[in-house]
């Protein structure tokens, strides 16, 4: 585990206000999800999950086929598909288009995919103004922070934080009432929408048979981003494709429920190409950027490729007792929580943050709520194995490796195992049968010290089970 990861976890745990904010917010989202997926409300919830999983499996197993079908159909509606291998590809494409069209101002709606490639920073670097329009993302853009949560990006900010930020960055009078803060943002952003040359959105689904993208939201900023400017660019990972528009009936029911506990989100935009002849409004140009950025690295392994089924609902974050303690910014990359813990090592390589797959009690709450049934705990276990393999290659962590070799040897030699156990018992403090708070300094090292830093330990019993069994 890196020092930085450790420090961030420690800092978050030590911040009582943050602890309360994150725990409460995720708890609320978690409870709402439970309500709207209950058997009495959605009797076929489990069937929908099974279907969603089957569709995703089918698509990912045949991804090239569906990408090509999607591409053909987008182009048949007059749109264009642009494949990008990485961050530079994406920003080059946008910059080039902006230059050719003489565009200066870009409005953006929420997209985790563009966070991956730091699009705003890259555009700003070349003199393009790119404004986030989702309220939470806008707040974070002003604060120069990464999203704290895939669905509720500014979950860690209080109204007072937002008030300070608006006063400082927008030069407005300080307001602390959330309604008023929202109105301020609405005013500023409305201007931007009406002036913007390009709208960049994410996409929740790429629909192969229609050549359409589907985007889910509550605020209306996606609708504005995709209909006010003359150019709409949707940026999505290649894994977002689904075969048919009809499959949306399954995914839309699952996504909003899992994400925010709504039956459906306020707005679902199904967009297929630029404005057509006779239509009153809508963009004149329509592009879909299909991003790899490491996704193809996840495909070879049959079980880990499941990680690409994710529809970014955030349910696993809210269910995760670890996320609920360490928050989103402790994670080493833009994706946090259980999904972040399984995709970060696969996108960035396991040595990027070797501690990450281990930062889990493997409680399984994530897999239980995942609407597309990704077996997250199992993938974590596989990644732990991958970390060890990479350590072995690099000659790292030799002592632990040795310890587990010894463990395996002892556990396959029952006599030695018994002797070792009794030896430990003979030197361990007895605590007079009470739980033990501390041990003498020379013993207080390694795992024992770590255990005792938070909890008492049991006194070792005078006889092991096997001794008692023999004697009975």
């Amino acid at each position, binding site marked *: 585990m890196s020092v930085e990861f450790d420090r961030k976890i420690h800092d978050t745990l030590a911040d009582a206000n943050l602890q309360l904010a994150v725990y409460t917010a995720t708890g609320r989202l978690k409870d709402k999800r439970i309500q709207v997926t209950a058997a009495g409300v959605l009797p076929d919830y489990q069937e929908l999950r099974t279907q969603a999983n089957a569709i995703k499996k089918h698509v990912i197993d045949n991804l090239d086929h569906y990408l090509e079908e999607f591409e053909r159909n987008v182009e048949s509606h007059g749109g264009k598909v642009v494949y990008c291998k990485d961050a530079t590809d994406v920003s080059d494409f946008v910059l080039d288009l902006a230059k050719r069209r003489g565009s200066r101002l870009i409005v953006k709606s929420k997209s985790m995919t563009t966070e991956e490639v730091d699009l705003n920073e890259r555009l700003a670097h070349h003199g393009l103004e790119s404004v986030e329009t989702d309220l939470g993302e806008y707040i974070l853009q002003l604060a120069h922070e990464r999203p704290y949560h895939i669905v509720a990006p500014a979950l860690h900010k209080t109204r007072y934080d937002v008030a300070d930020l608006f006063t400082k960055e927008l030069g407005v009078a300080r307001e602390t009432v959330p309604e008023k803060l929202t109105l301020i943002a609405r005013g500023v952003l409305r201007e931007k929408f009406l002036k913007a040359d390009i709208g960049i959105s994410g996409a929740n689904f790429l629909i192969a048979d229609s050549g359409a993208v589907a985007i889910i939201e509550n605020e209306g900023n996606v609708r504005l981003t995709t209909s006010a400017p003359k150019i709409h660019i949707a940026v999505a990972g290649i894994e977002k494709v689904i*075969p048919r528009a009809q499959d949306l009936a399954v995914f839309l029911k699952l996504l909003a429920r899992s994400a*925010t506990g709504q039956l459906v989100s306020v707005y679902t935009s199904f967009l297929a190409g630029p404005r057509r002849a006779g239509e009153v409004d809508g963009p004149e140009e329509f592009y879909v950027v299909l991003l790899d950025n490491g996704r193809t690295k996840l495909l070879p392994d049959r079980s880990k490729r499941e990680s690409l089924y994710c529809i970014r609902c955030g349910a696993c974050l809210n269910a995760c007792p670890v996320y609920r303690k360490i928050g989103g910014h402790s994670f080493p990359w833009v994706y946090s929580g259980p999904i972040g813990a399984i995709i970060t090592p696969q996108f960035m390589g396991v040595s990027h943050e070797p501690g990450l797959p281990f930062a889990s009690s493997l409680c399984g709450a994530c897999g239980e709520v995942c609407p597309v049934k990704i077996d997250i705990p199992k993938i974590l276990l596989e990644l732990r194995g991958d970390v060890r393999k990479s350590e072995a290659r690099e000659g790292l962590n030799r002592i632990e490796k040795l310890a587990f070799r010894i463990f395996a040897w002892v556990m396959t030699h029952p006599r030695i195992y018994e002797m070792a156990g009794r030896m430990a018992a003979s030197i361990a403090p007895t605590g007079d049968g009470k739980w033990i708070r501390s041990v003498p300094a020379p013993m207080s090292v390694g795992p024992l010290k770590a255990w005792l830093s938070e909890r008492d330990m049991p006194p070792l019993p005078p006889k092991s089970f096997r001794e008692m069994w023999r004697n009975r």
Partner: protein
Amino acid sequence: MSRDNILHKVRTALGRSAGQAVADPPPVRLRVPEIAMEDRIALMRSRVEALAGKTARVPTMEAAREFVAGAIAGKTAVASNAPYLVECGISSLPGVRTGIREVGELTAVCAQVDIGITSADYALCDTGTLVMIASPAEGRLVSLLPPAHIAVVPRERILTGLDELFTILPDPAAQTSSMVLITGPSQTADIEQILIRGVHGPGQVTVVIVG
């Protein structure tokens, strides 16, 4: 060039070759329940109202016009080019701008007025959703830019839900560049999870069911 590179990587990783056929995807799963019209109307209304939207049920097209006239009294409004609004006589109500076909003008008007009036191609009763299909008759901005949105929907357009919608419209892209599902007023909960309506889209949505 990234295109071929990425597709090649995908195929290599999956052990597939270019143009290789695929097995059928899992069968489409659409379940359309039977819900009587009166129950659909009641459900539609309760869903919209649960989201702090308003609903009204009026018996006739004339009554719809009267209702809308009352709702826009003293305010400015824009109506989409939906034939149904013309038939109801809503488009010709005093103070209603309509018949706009130029995008610049439409944007400017929608950004100014208090209320946008549209019909809807369908409504989905199990979620309280309006289905707006972009066409010469319905723009995208009328239901989006003004702070209030009124949708006038004849009752026979109320479907049971998403499954029925996608049964009727297996591929919406065949007829439109944009289908938007609207479920209640625009909302955000990005500051301390406090629900606030009308952040970017309309903060008020009124569904008028005719018949």
